[in-house]
């Protein structure tokens, strides 16, 4: 038998019961919240990392010279490795995991989850092909006939082909959250996709700049990655601010107070700090730069994680709040 249900009263101490029934039904939630927890947070983070890495690898292959090959190689491997746990996390989260393949029986363009499943399949296929080509190129697969066939695939074509699914995977999760009745997500439906995209790109650039190691062109590679990271961080900061302001006091409450509020503030502080550290790295002596840049990358990556956690768990809080739902469904601005 499931545990005894506990009802939460949202009445302020000293206020009579009648106060609750004036504007809501005893302060009980109007809508049902999502059941999503940590598996979904990790999927969002890894999906962003995978999508962002694939974008960077593809851009480096398409317009970068030989100097950018380390980004292509590591970006392709990282994109494939980061997306691999994704389907497993999603399947674990299902109420009936053994029926995961029911997702593949329809295509529904108005359901971001249905489109997302197909996007994930497409991305995994393109990331696999890119990683396979790279492995063949790097000689990891030996020199047999099959490997020669793989290497005959058009490399730039594979890179160009991976751009669309990569951007899709990094951004669709924001659209998925926005297409619900959860006030916090619904109010920010137009901002969450771009926000998740920025955060995906900044975290992928941060991860790659840590992983490129030491090659002859490593300084140039780091510079290019930092430029991307800075653009993405500026966008992320602006969107984090826009989400907070656009939500207003009532709808934005979950990302202002409590643990989720602290996570959101942490995400914003991380993006600002990472940006600040990059700027600082330009003026300090050379030997301090590496430390600052490693620190900036770690902070940016942590911020991407905090952002996903704040939005997923904040949505759960938002659904519990009848005032937020009523504010949304009256078309009021506050």
């Amino acid at each position, binding site marked *: 038998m499931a545990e005894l249900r506990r009802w939460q009263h949202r009445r302020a101490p000293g206020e009579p019961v009648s106060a609750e029934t004036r504007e809501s039904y005893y302060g009980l939630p109007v809508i049902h919240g999502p059941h999503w927890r940590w598996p979904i947070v990790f999927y969002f983070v890894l999906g962003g990392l995978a999508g962002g890495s694939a974008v960077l690898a593809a851009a480096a292959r398409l317009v970068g010279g030989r100097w950018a090959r380390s980004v292509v190689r590591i970006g392709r491997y990282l994109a494939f490795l980061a997306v691999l746990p994704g389907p497993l996390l999603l399947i674990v989260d299902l109420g009936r995991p053994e029926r995961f393949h029911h997702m593949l029986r329809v295509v529904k363009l108005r359901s971001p989850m249905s489109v997302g499943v197909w996007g994930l399949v497409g991305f995994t296929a393109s990331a696999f092909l890119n990683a396979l080509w790279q492995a063949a190129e790097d000689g990891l697969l030996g020199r047999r006939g099959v490997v020669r066939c793989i290497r005959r695939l058009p490399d730039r074509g594979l890179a160009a082909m991976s*751009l669309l699914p990569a951007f899709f995977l990094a951004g669709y999760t924001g659209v998925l959250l926005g297409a619900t009745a959860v006030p916090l997500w619904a109010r920010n439906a137009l901002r969450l996709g771009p926000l998740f995209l920025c955060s995906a790109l900044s975290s992928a650039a941060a991860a790659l700049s840590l992983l490129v190691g030491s090659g002859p062109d490593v300084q140039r590679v780091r510079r290019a990655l930092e430029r991307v990271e800075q653009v993405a961080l500026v966008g992320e900061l602006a969107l984090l601010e826009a989400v907070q302001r656009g939500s207003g006091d009532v709808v934005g409450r979950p990302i202002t107070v409590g643990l989720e509020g602290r996570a959101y503030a942490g995400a914003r502080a991380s993006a600002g700090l990472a940006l600040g550290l990059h700027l600082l790295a330009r003026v300090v002596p050379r030997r301090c730069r590496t430390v600052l840049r490693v620190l900036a990358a770690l902070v940016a990556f942590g911020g991407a994680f905090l952002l996903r956690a704040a939005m997923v768990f904040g949505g759960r809080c938002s659904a519990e709040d009848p005032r937020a739902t009523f504010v*949304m469904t009256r078309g009021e601005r506050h």
Partner: protein
Amino acid sequence: MNSESTLVGRTRARPGAFGFLTDTTLCIGCKACEVACKQWNQLPMDDFGFTGMSYDNTGDLGATTWRHVAFIERVADRQGRRPTRLQPFQSHWLMLSDVCKHCVNAGCMEACPTGAIIRTEFDTVVIQQDVCNGCGYCVPACPFGVPALSPLDGKAHKCTLCYDRLKDGLEPACSKACPTDAIQFGPVHALMDRAKARVAELQAQGVDARIYGDEALGGTGGIGGLNAFFILTAPPEVYNLPAAPELPQRRVLPAFLTTALAALVLGVATLLSFWRTKEVRHG
């Protein structure tokens, strides 16, 4: 732009659609509908909790509660004043037997990624239990908080409008059991005509009555109307119903467009930084 008065009583329900009219002025809060629903659909008992704030210990609709009678004890008006005379109906009580609204455009159905949620030949919305894989996306996609995941079998459940009974030409269990005909079952357009007549009658008696579930109230924002609709005598929020809910899927295309725009900007920025980054000189 339509003025609200032209939308009152208007629904986009398809011809031949079946639904409920739940007239709260006739409800006596006997909970026969809750019991009949549980009996017919063999729904297990809810966790036996005590809400401690009203006569309502059911709380809300859920995976094992497809009819829920809300009890609102009106000890004060909206300004906090104690009433000095009784209302003609239900006195100081408001009772509402809540149920799945079987929306004309249903958020849960559009969200469902497996196609488990379908529209039947009676124009009702039903979750096919042999298809549902418990992804839970329909749960937050419903603007009324109707579907829920069951901890017992991991799947989403909600009112089927007694699909099995309709197939055999019987009316749903809840409306069959209702002793005061507060729950009426029939073709939606006929019920809507009846509701309009009833609201006019109530208003003539000085009751602040309204239809919830037409395009003016409840069936707003792309939902197009509710096949299971209500007659209320207080603002919808008092019954825990949103006044102007929106179909969440209306936001899908705009959200994909802003995301695509962001992808374009970031893509150009990424290409530029790999194209234009010059070699770094040592020293």
